[in-house]
């Protein structure tokens, strides 16, 4: 249902433009209905103070019924935040991007959830299985079957 997907993304984009993105989040590019880029900052007194990250949204053809693929950009300019649920290749282990995704959620609500996930972090560290995962990780985190075990972060 590409029409639903386009209509819905157009609507989300329109709202971003009229109301502006939430504090700490800025649109880098949203040229088409396939891939959007945002910068994300965690404001206030957190472990990530002064750091800026880049989030990439890729939308499947049947968005919002299917979840978007959300990763942190890792290249020469950007890096993935050091966080127990974020792998060094930028893949994020968050249930709302997997089995708990529902069309009620949106690009903005995912950004806000990730922002608060970073804000509530108490210890900067990589996931325990980071090296093993990164070595064998599929290109898209949606092909990974994450086991969501931690509700605290």
């Amino acid at each position, binding site marked *: 249902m590409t029409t*639903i997907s386009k*209509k*819905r993304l157009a609507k*989300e984009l329109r709202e971003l433009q009229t109301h502006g993105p939430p504090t700490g989040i800025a649109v880098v590019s949203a040229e088409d209905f396939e891939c959007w880029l945002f910068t994300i900052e965690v404001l206030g007194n957190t472990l990530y103070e002064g750091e800026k990250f880049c989030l990439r949204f890729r939308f499947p053809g049947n968005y919002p*019924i299917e979840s978007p693929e959300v990763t942190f950009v890792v290249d020469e300019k950007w890096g993935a935040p050091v966080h127990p649920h974020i792998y060094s290749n930028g893949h994020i282990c968050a249930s709302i991007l997997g089995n708990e995704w529902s*069309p*009620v959620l949106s690009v903005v609500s995912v950004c806000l959830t990730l922002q608060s996930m970073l804000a509530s972090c108490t210890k900067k560290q990589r996931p325990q299985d980071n090296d093993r995962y990164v070595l064998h990780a599929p290109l898209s985190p949606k092909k990974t079957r994450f086991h969501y075990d931690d509700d605290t972060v």
Partner: protein
Amino acid sequence: MSGTRRWPHARVPDVADLRTRECWICKEDETFTTRGQRKKDSLSKWIHPCKCTLVAHESCLLEWIARTQQTLDPPPQCPQCNAPFVIATKRTVILRALDWIDAKKGTIVNVLIVTGITSGLLVLSTAYGVHALRMLVGKEMSRYMIGNGPEDWPIEAWINLPLIPFALMITQTARLDPFVLSLPFFVSPYVHALNSLNDPEFHPLGAPVLPSSAHDGLMMAFPPSPQLLIALIPPVKLLYSTLRQGLIRMLMSPSAGGARSGRLGAADIDVGPQIREEFGLRVQVEDENGNQQNWARGLVLNGTTIGAFVTYSLSLPLIASVSGHILRFLANYSPGLRTFLALDSIPQPTPFLFGTGVRVATLGLHLRGPSQLLGTGMDPVWWRNTVGLCLFTVTKDAVELLHAWLRREEKRSRRIVSRNFTGVDLGGLDLIM
């Protein structure tokens, strides 16, 4: 917004009463001022399926449910308030049945796999059974007993023939002696029910069938019939293994040989290096302190020993056949052996009787058609095969026992030679001067 104004109507408002509606799936919104206007303009029906304020297009909701859930069980829920959606649907009995089958597919497939493997094994063991029977009793006799092919087989043959390989394995176990004894009776009861002994229709060789009275009573004849021989397996086997174990104890007990104190019964447990039969596998325990634990540890049941056991058991018909052929060949040079193997009776036109009355279905096979007067005598392949197999078994056991005994004797004869201190610095030794 009309938050401050009271709802003026008696009825509870529904989705059609909302001024602005936004589908929570496609985010499309509509704003209307009157109730009547929207019905024609709306592209899709609007639904309020849950207990919170979310509303959606019916088409969007159905699309979402179809994509995320295979069946409506459990019912889909609102992602915000978790209220289950009530869905009216035409779920016919046939669809329900097919869904149920789909859900049980795993179990059904497993059952099919097990059935497939079982019937495969059944076919395999039946084929083996036929082949083994032919080898053991000879072509003529097997044709007489079960006919020319599966179309001739009596019903019980379908039960008995596949049991032959297992019966052969059971005859090779020492542990299951009591079971060996019961084996014929284990199979026979229902075989009796199906028995077509007196079935006048059954003339595999066109031979006349005696009146049933002639079947009763144990008729001894020479050579013994296959039935009688098979019926004798359990008692003979028990007797043989008792004798053999006695011999093993006598030869292998620590006191035997060198000391020759003649302790037989008392030496049962502290048998030194001993040969034990466990599940038909000969397990040798080398430990000189052979107590109970030691031979329990020595019980090796691994792939190789089980494989050897199965292979040996299943080779018995071949061994019997080869031994029978050798005996037959040797009989050309010995008139006595020729008589013993009843080879002289073959050309005789005089009929001979198969000893029967022992209506046992043995070795998993109920042998039909006993007591039949045959126009021509059969080559008693089964008899020389039995004799050959017995000779082979006795020889094999004797060689094994001899090997174990020689090994033990060699160990006992070991003495270590003591040397003098040639080449050693004598100053380093504390010697008695």
